[in-house]
């Protein structure tokens, strides 16, 4: 019997040598005349242990990591003789970091072969869709609404209401659009699920299609994600071949097909109306709302536009029922959130858990603090438009409303950790700089405000009339917040104002310096 090994093909694992490890395993096994089979999975999301190598046993998988090419011979020895190895982590499912998660959306990621429709089905794939077919559109809407699922892209709009709005429109064509323009730094959950469990996204979009009466879907993936583009394209072809896309899907009377479209390096295209413009082949200029995309979206037709993670949550909700999902979470944040721990962090990766876990637990306990070993000073939650939180706010529970109440946002669930060497003036300037680079240019507060913001923060850094310029930045932030057309200009003030509020000491020169200057 041949040995069965699992090595991730996830971009994050490949970037730290997973391909080289897989090749070395094959070469070493061939040299010894040992028969092995290597399954290239997605990532389990324990990135500090990548490249992770798993070994199939009758009792489940045993993990080793992080494995380098030079570890391969000793690893094969240990496997052949069943002796201990320095990199042996024990049963994968028992690794505490994985065990304490609640993996509803990411249940299969890192487990199955993302290229295999059979593997997906063998692990519960399309179970939700089959139930959806038996329920019909009205009952699906009831389930999705009852689950309490809110848009996982960041805005947190109830998914059920969005779908219902599109379902109630009458039009000759309707569209399903999946927003996979995951541009926020510190986020990679969309990428992981597209690379590790692409059929899940297809199943979610297809379910949305039959619910609202759409027959065509687009998934708009950013060009920085070539591995995800490849994985989604391969999965779409396989799903079509398997009868899950195209005419009469899954033996039903419904038709639905979809295609991948690739972005071109514009962050603003993650904003839904800008994304629709881009899909139509135009500059990614933000549209004024109303009309809502649900009424007039892609090519002027009613459109459901949701984030990857929103669609990816649907199959579980339908397979297990709305209550099974809604039982997790707190307040109006129901279900689980795939949280991404990133930046200067010891145990970085994907941690899916019910809403309600505190920021401190996530950063200190689960994340293990910084990898530099220095104290954590600031964490940015929710991408480049998210606020910087100090340790004093680490009691904040991970929940849409709790973050909003502290002038922050959970966004797409990314947490970037900084140690005490961070200069918050530079982070505030970068927020404005990034907005200036990525502004679509349609509205003035964002287009001009961001440039003026960079200049003014620059003056503060240079010690020019600091208190006046600080007041000016605050005023400018208010103009951007309330006057911008979309979240880019509207939310750029979050990182800037939070840096000013919680890390004021970085902006005000120390009194001794002032005396010296006089």
């Amino acid at each position, binding site marked *: 019997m041949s040995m069965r090994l699992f090595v991730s093909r996830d971009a*994050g694992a490949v970037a730290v040598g997973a391909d080289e490890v897989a090749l070395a395993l094959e070469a070493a096994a061939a040299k010894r005349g040992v028969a092995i089979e290597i399954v290239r999975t997605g990532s389990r999301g324990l990135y500090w242990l990548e490249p992770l190598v798993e070994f199939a046993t009758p009792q489940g998988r045993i993990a080793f990591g992080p494995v380098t090419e030079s570890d391969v011979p000793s690893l094969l020895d240990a496997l052949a003789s069943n002796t201990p190895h320095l990199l042996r982590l024990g049963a994968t499912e028992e690794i505490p970091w994985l065990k304490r998660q609640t993996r509803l959306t990411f249940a299969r990621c890192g487990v199955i072969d993302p290229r295999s429709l059979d593997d997906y089905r063998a692990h519960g794939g399309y179970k939700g869709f089959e139930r959806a077919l038996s329920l019909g559109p009205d009952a699906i809407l009831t389930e999705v609404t009852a689950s309490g699922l809110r848009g996982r892209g960041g805005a947190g709009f109830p998914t059920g209401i969005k779908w219902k709005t599109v379902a109630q429109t009458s039009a000759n064509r309707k569209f399903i659009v999946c927003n996979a323009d995951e541009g926020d*730094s510190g986020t990679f959950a969309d990428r992981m699920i597209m690379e590790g469990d692409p059929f899940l996204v297809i199943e979610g979009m297809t379910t949305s299609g039959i619910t609202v009466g759409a027959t065509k879907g687009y998934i708009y993936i950013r060009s920085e994600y070539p591995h995800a583009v490849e994985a989604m394209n391969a999965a779409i072809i396989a799903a079509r071949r398997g009868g899950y896309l195209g005419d009469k899907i899954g033996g039903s009377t419904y038709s639905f097909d979809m295609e991948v479209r690739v972005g071109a390096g514009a962050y603003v295209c993650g904003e839904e109306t800008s994304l629709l413009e881009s899909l139509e*082949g135009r*500059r990614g200029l933000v549209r004024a709302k109303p009309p809502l995309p649900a009424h007039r979206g892609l090519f002027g037709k009613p459109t459901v536009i949701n984030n990857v993670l929103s669609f990816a949550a649907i199959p579980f909700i339908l397979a297990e029922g709305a209550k099974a999902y809604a039982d997790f979470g707190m307040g109006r944040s129901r279900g689980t959130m795939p949280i991404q721990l*990133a930046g200067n962090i010891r145990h970085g990766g994907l941690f899916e858990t019910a809403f309600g876990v505190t920021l401190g637990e996530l950063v200190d306990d689960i994340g293990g603090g910084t990898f530099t070993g220095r104290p954590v000073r600031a964490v940015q939650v929710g991408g480049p438009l998210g606020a910087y939180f100090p340790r004093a706010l680490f009691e904040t529970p991970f929940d849409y409303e709790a973050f909003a109440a502290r002038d922050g946002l959970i966004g797409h669930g990314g947490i970037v950790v900084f140690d005490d060497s961070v200069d918050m003036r530079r982070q505030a300037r970068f927020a404005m700089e*990034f907005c200036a680079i990525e502004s*679509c240019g349609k509205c003035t507060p964002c287009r001009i405000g961001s440039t003026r913001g960079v200049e003014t923060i620059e003056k503060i850094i240079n010690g020019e009339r600091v208190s006046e310029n600080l007041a000016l930045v605050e005023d400018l932030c208010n103009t951007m917040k309330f006057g911008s057309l979309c979240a880019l200009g509207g939310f750029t003030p979050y990182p800037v104002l939070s840096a000013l509020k919680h890390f004021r000491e970085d902006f005000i020169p120390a009194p001794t310096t002032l005396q010296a200057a006089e």
Partner: protein
Amino acid sequence: MTAVYEPSYEPWNETRGAEIIAEHGKQEGATLVILHALQEAFGYVPEAAIPMVAQALNLSRAEVHGVFTFYHDFRHKPAGRHVLKLCRAEACQAAGGDALAARAEARLGVSLGNTTADDRVTLEPIYCLGLCATAPSAMLDGRLIGRLDEKRLDALVAEAQR
């Protein structure tokens, strides 16, 4: 060590350009799809292709030019033989990315966004490769590199200069 990969592109050719445009032009909202395909074939989007795209899609030249210039990905001239992209977003900043970017600039003698005088290396910023748990990260001609440090960066720069 993996062999040095060098992207290869066709020289601009109007007939070939017209073929590419015709191949993708039937899709709905085809502009970006066509511009991507042209760049994939030629390494950039030649000026001469813009009016051809406009005509095929029944758009004005200005509209196509507008789309072309809006997106950071599209090039109006070929890049250097190798393209080294360094992630400059927050997660990589938190993990020491600023110092590495400065080091790459010093080693190559160009600032981010420019090509070395010998046309060998184009050094570019990128805002997030989605490798934020193994930061800092980089991409050399489509190959991803995580957990970048000085040693790894120097090796990448040397590889790109070859």
